[in-house]
């Protein structure tokens, strides 16, 4: 098991290398000249050229890529062109709100989506099942920013139950931190909840047909024990897979959600960086997100072995 995890981490290196190459070349071929942006409107061509040389932008592509990778491997993500601060510390400042948002969304999703899917499968074909699935389609179809604004309007502006926007660091208390994250998490989680509820229902429907469910009923087990122990554990592999894949949805959604709810996280940093063509920052964030995604899917693979004893690496 440990050796499997170790091998998997080794295997992520080529993946990360390809991601790095992609990230780097994407910015290289994107229109716009960072040197010109930094120099400003008033700069002479000589000034722009000087900046270009200082940044190494005139060197061959592979040389630039090589030195970039070399620095990253030494923990140096570069320096923001715009703020002149190290990218590493910019990300460090902004990472807490984003991770908080994603964790809360994940927890909320699991608490809502899995039971909904289980109940829908159990009551398959009834009005309850149809209602849940209708909501799932609804949640699936609405963009994050629409849900976000509607939630903020209803629960924050009208009912005044929750703050409209902003973020309170966890260091200032669990409750204020949580209260600020509820609306963004619901908004961000909508699609995710819909997706996982549907997958849970489909996986459960199949499992509930199995002979061992009949055995469990013949033993006199109660409905809850049958659904949540005997069936759900068997249905867990596809569900966990989709939870892992869905992290990509969360990463994309977090960028929009943070804008809607004015959360000073990585999403905002990303947008600002793109608008300013702050290449080192964009590269750093994309690399971080890719790494996070690869890591989550490694965790998914490890989780398989916990839910299904037949899977061994």
């Amino acid at each position, binding site marked *: 098991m440990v050796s499997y995890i170790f091998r998997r981490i080794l295997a992520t290196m080529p993946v990360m290398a390809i991601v790095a190459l992609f990230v780097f070349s994407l910015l290289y071929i994107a229109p716009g000249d960072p040197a010109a942006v930094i120099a400003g409107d008033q700069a002479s061509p000589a000034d722009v050229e000087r900046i270009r040389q200082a940044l190494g932008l005139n060197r061959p592509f592979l040389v630039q890529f090589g030195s970039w990778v070399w620095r990253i491997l030494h923990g140096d993500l570069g320096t923001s062109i715009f703020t002149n601060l190290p990218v590493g510390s910019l990300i460090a400042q902004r990472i807490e709100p984003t991770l908080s948002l994603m964790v809360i969304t994940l927890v909320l999703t699991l608490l809502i989506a899995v039971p909904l899917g289980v109940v829908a499968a159990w009551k398959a074909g009834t009005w309850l099942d149809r209602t849940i699935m209708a909501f799932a389609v609804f949640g699936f179809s609405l963009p994050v920013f629409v849900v976000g604004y509607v939630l903020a309007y209803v629960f924050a502006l009208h009912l005044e139950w929750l703050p409209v926007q902003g973020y309170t660091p966890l260091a200032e208390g669990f409750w204020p931190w949580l209260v600020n994250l509820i609306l963004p998490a619901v908004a961000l989680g909508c699609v995710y909840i819909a997706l996982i509820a549907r997958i849970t229902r489909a996986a459960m429907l199949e499992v509930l047909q199995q002979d*061992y469910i*009949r055995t469990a*009923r*013949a*033993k006199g087990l109660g409905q809850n024990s049958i659904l949540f122990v005997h069936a759900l554990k*068997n249905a867990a592999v596809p569900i966990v897979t989709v939870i892992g894949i869905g992290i990509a949805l969360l990463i994309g959604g977090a960028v929009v959600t943070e804008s809607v709810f004015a959360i000073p996280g990585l999403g905002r940093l990303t947008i600002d960086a793109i608008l300013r063509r702050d290449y080192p920052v964009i590269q750093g964030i994309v690399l971080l997100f890719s790494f996070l995604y690869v890591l989550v899917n490694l965790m998914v693979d490890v989780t398989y072995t916990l839910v299904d*004893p037949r899977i061994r690496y």
Partner: protein
Amino acid sequence: MALLDVQNLQTHFRTPEGVNRAVDGVSFHVDEGETLAIVGESGCGKSVTSMSLMRLIPEPPGKIAGSIRFQGKDLLQLSEPEMRAIRGNDISMIFQEPMTSLNPVLTVGRQIGETLRMHQGLDKQAALARAVEMLTLVGIPEPARRVREYPHQLSGGMRQRVMIAMALACNPKLLIADEPTTALDVTIQAQILQLMLDLKRRVGAAIVLITHDLGVVAEIAERVMVMYAGRKVEEAPVAELFRSPRHPYTQGLLGALPRLGSSLTGAARRLAEIPGQVPSLKQRIEGCVFAGRCPLATDLCREFAPGLEEKGPRHIAACHYAPKEAAAA
């Protein structure tokens, strides 16, 4: 009083093409400690009967009517929680497919212990200890290790032993075995049957054995009930049935059995078969259910359904033409 007394059991399923009368008015009883075999070919309603006894038929689309008296209580009148207290405790079940009837992601010990924890209120440790005991009882070597293993780590025969251990853990009064040996190798079949008999004597449980294997019936049953197209067509003590089957269907079933050495004594012969198939149960059948395939059938059979008549000592059959045993014979 009989342990189990089933009167006019009807299990019907609503389907888009009409009502499927899978079991249509079957009555039988099982005494304490007795072994009753229910035989018949596929689709004759054997398994639906056994599932109905446990009320494991999903309703809807299924519907169970009649009465199922177990120790005097009508199971069909019980609430679902009351029924749950009986399932796996007073009445338990062994299924045909040991490969798929055990939950693949829970340990064997957990699956055996579960019934004990629920029905007998044992704690986790006591249940596990008892599970080890049960595994020893069903002849699984190294029970202390096996109890922590998962079904995929066991062979088919061992899994069926686990199923038996699970079914007998709470010392049930009645064990329903739905084709318990069909999926197993012949050598393992004999072992499992022997094990069931040994344990039955030990626990004192009655058995309802569902099977289409007449060899198994001859070996372990005391009384046999033959089902055809959702009805009971014949019932007799096992020796009596094999000696003088009265219903043409039963005769056909017995005639279809291979006999050892038959190809040596005569010309190599095909096994006798019963022509045709079990009729669709979605239309009400007028007359005798077996008339369509019966060599003796006449217009009388096609118009009037024969009732179950006494044809010999404790021997009943539903056939207009089945001979009554002469009193002297």
